[in-house]
């Protein structure tokens, strides 16, 4: 399809409320109650504003149409010859009255939506702490509950139908947490904890992205929210809670050794090993994730290798240095990391 056709169809699509962009990162395709409230508000806004625009534009075109033409030579009417112009006064007053009514309507719609958003019941909600940092997301489930807590990065799993309370924090600069299909956004502000509530109602994989400019790699600070059936979610949570398995074979053992002996250990944690640094993402279950480096790469062995050997090429400025390893060490490391399911 040509760009122009796409454009035209996107206009039509938007006007009819159907989305054209990708379904997994789209405010017009709500998959959760909060996004749904806002979507309804959007339709009200769009409808009202379309009516206002058409009315105003019609009056404008009619004015141009009916007014006689002139040149510089046409003698001007002056204040004294134009008189009081009752009709004009009435038209302006009517327009003002209608505008006030319209705006009042939109204000009410907006406040009602605000109430609805705040009214999401949080009973037996899931609490997740999200730490946005340059340029990845540290995610802690059940913070403060040692028996259930675990940490992951750049990927949230949530059970469908259950409310989620996100506690948003930042150790460095301001970021913003935004999954358009599920909920409106909220900033992560250093020195404060903000909260965001959401509930996914349709299972699926939704992409989110940092929305507040946060420096160099703001463009590549994405994440995924995977909304799944509660049973599936529980299974996932259990597996994430477990420590990393003991390496099953020599190659993997070697891989772990490489990890522990190279700079990796200074920044990353792998539960069940002595690696417990928190500068970079927790890698205990890195192989279970769909992407690498905050949504930058699909999680495959090739990309993992590329990332480890040269993160600065994949994501210039990222806070992970390139680490050079002998070829077989690298292979062993990759095999080990791939086993961290």
């Amino acid at each position, binding site marked *: 399809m040509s760009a122009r056709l796409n454009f035209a169809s996107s206009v039509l699509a938007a006007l009819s409320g159907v989305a054209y962009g990708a379904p997994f990162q789209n405010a017009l395709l709500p998959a959760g109650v909060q996004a749904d409230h806002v979507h309804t508000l959007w339709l009200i806004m769009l409808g009202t504003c379309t009516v206002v625009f058409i009315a105003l534009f019609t009056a404008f075109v009619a004015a141009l149409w009916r007014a006689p033409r002139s040149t510089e030579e046409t003698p*001007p009417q002056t204040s004294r010859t134009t008189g009081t112009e009752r009709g004009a006064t009435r038209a302006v007053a009517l327009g003002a009255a209608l505008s006030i009514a319209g705006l009042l309507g939109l204000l009410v719609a907006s406040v009602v939506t605000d109430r609805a958003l705040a009214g999401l019941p949080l009973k037996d909600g899931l609490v997740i702490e999200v730490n946005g940092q340059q340029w990845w997301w540290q995610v802690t489930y059940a913070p403060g509950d040692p028996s259930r807590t675990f940490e992951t990065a750049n990927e949230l799993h949530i059970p469908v139908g259950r409310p989620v309370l996100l506690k948003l924090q930042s150790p460095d600069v301001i970021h913003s947490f935004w999954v358009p299909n599920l909920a409106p*956004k909220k900033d992560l502000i250093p020195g404060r904890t903000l909260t965001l509530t959401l509930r996914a109602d349709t299972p699926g994989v939704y992409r989110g992205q940092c929305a507040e400019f946060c420096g160099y790699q*703001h463009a590549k600070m994405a994440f995924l929210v995977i909304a799944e059936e509660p049973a599936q979610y529980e299974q996932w949570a259990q597996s994430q809670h477990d420590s990393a398995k003991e390496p099953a074979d020599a190659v993997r053992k070697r891989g772990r050794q490489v990890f522990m002996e190279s700079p990796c250990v200074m920044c990353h944690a792998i539960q069940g090993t002595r690696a417990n640094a928190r500068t970079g993402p927790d890698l205990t279950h890195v192989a279970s994730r769909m992407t690498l480096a905050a949504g930058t790469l699909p999680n495959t062995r090739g990309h993992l290798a590329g990332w480890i050997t040269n993160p600065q090429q994949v994501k210039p400025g990222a806070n992970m240095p390139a680490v050079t390893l002998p070829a077989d060490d690298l292979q062993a490391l990759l095999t080990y990391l791939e086993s961290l399911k």
Partner: protein
Amino acid sequence: MSRDIPVGRGEPSPDENGKLERAWGTPPGLVGWLSSIDHKVIGYRFIVTAMAFFAAGGILAALMRLQLAVPENSLIGPDLYNQIFTMHGTTMMFLFAVPVMQAMGVYLVPLMVGTRNIAFPRLNAYAYWIYLFGGLMIYTAFALDIGPDAGWFSYPPLAGPEFSPGKRVDFWAQLITFTEVSGLLTSIVLITTILKLRAPGMTLDRMPLFVWAILVTSFMIMFAMPAIMFASTGLITDRLVGTHFYNPAEGGDAMLWQHLFWFFGHPEVYIIFIPALGFISSIIATFARRPVFGYPVLVLSMIATGFLGFGLWVHHMFATDAPELGKSFFTAASMIIAIPTALQIFCWITTLWNGRLNFRVPLLFVLAFFFILVIGGLTGIMLASGPLDLQVHDTYFVVAHLHYVLIGGAVFPLFGAFYYWFPKITGRMLNERLGRWNFWLFFIGFNVTFFPMHHLGLYGMPRRVYTYPANVGWSDLNAVATLGAVVIAVSMLLFLVNVIRSYRSGARSPHDPWSAPTLEWATASPPPVYNFARIPIVASREPLWGPSGIVGRVDGLSMDPPENLVTCVLDAAPDHRSVYPRPGIWPFLSAVATTVLFVGSIFTPWAIVWGAVPVAIALTAWFWPGKDEIDEHLALERKP
């Protein structure tokens, strides 16, 4: 209508004219050139400089569009892209939009109110030089790869010492100081001119709407810009001497910056918008061949917008933890401000409806306003709604909104104003055919560029990203937007060609080519250095329309040394004479000294101390009267 110059019967003799030329004129040579304090010369330079920055900002925009044309593009990397979008936003807001509006005021207001020169002409020249030097400083930094890269609102902590080491943000913060000093001084100059130098008989309710617009804008600047000056000073001391205003670890707060910035930033957008409303009123009146309907409504609407504009700032911060109730208040306030805008739009449509229309290029540009600004205003209403804003905040939806309002609300009317006043400024007409091409390409290109951005925002595209993946469905619309930007660039090139050609060899313009109502058209095109040999006495809002507009003249002002008439604030009754300074180099030298202080302080705080010495010397020399001058003045003196 007669085509003779209406102000000037009872004309001075050629000899007197020569005297006036000498007293008000710019001396020859480079030093003379730097010494000029004629508001037309300064205003003209101001406009040209602002347009040069517009071209620079526009070229940066074109580069961004090229980078974003396709996904995963490697044309421009993150480091350069971040500098480019920051420079684009900063240039457009601080070096183009506000200055160009003030510049038009500096050029036009004294002519429109019928005075010989602006109030405090040396301060006016100083303000121009400060602005120029600030702009040159930031572009020098950019050329040396130390351009700012934290966005046009540079939120700390990102812009703070820890996360933006190096000098980049310091240059940005200091640019703010330059532009604010310039903007604030210019607003004092304009307010004094408007309140104290109007021609006798031009009571407040006879002032042209453009003059009202500049008056409201200047007051807004006076109360808005101190906030950003304070904010950027705090930022620079945080960065250079270790204060903690925005450092949460030491009791400061990142949100403090946002409050201060937007307390300025929101009024800022109306500071750009309101002068454009003045252009629209001027142009519609002339080309509908009748006064604009509802003069008091328009004046009150502008004043209301000026006040309300200070009550909306939190609508830029809905995604932070501002209290819910407060957010609803700011939603309501943001919607209320639509009412004065709506009233003005209704009055203009009514004027067009009852007018007789002359579809020349200036009118075309103004008519585009009714399409583009209304769309932008309506998306503004959507953004004003807290919940909806939280979906589209910091996305391309906001980028679409801001260009619809800024370009539709300010740039299109500004181009209309150029076509309208170019003959007054240069004495030549811009080419009408090229003008129409310029207009239509701009109009079409604009909508093709920015309309799809609404969708991009709803489809999840954040702003300020240097690239995006291929699988998120943004590629086509971005390609379309880039295509549109090319069309805009072509239209801008046509404008440039038109200006250059017409300046050299365009048709000569009579003093009043459009048969317009206001006083600037009552003097020659281009106007003589002293504007009016005899200050007119006016008796209506449209002094050039109808026989009883200009009812007399002021005699007896000294030709040499230059003297101007000061009138009363409300009724513009003649009050006293004021001897004007002659051109002088000190405003320029003071600006150089100030620049040394400002730029030096980026590198060491001690520059504030030693830099103050040359500044104090220059300012004192500026103030100090010459011996001959005192004699001249004493000869003219008459006690109150």
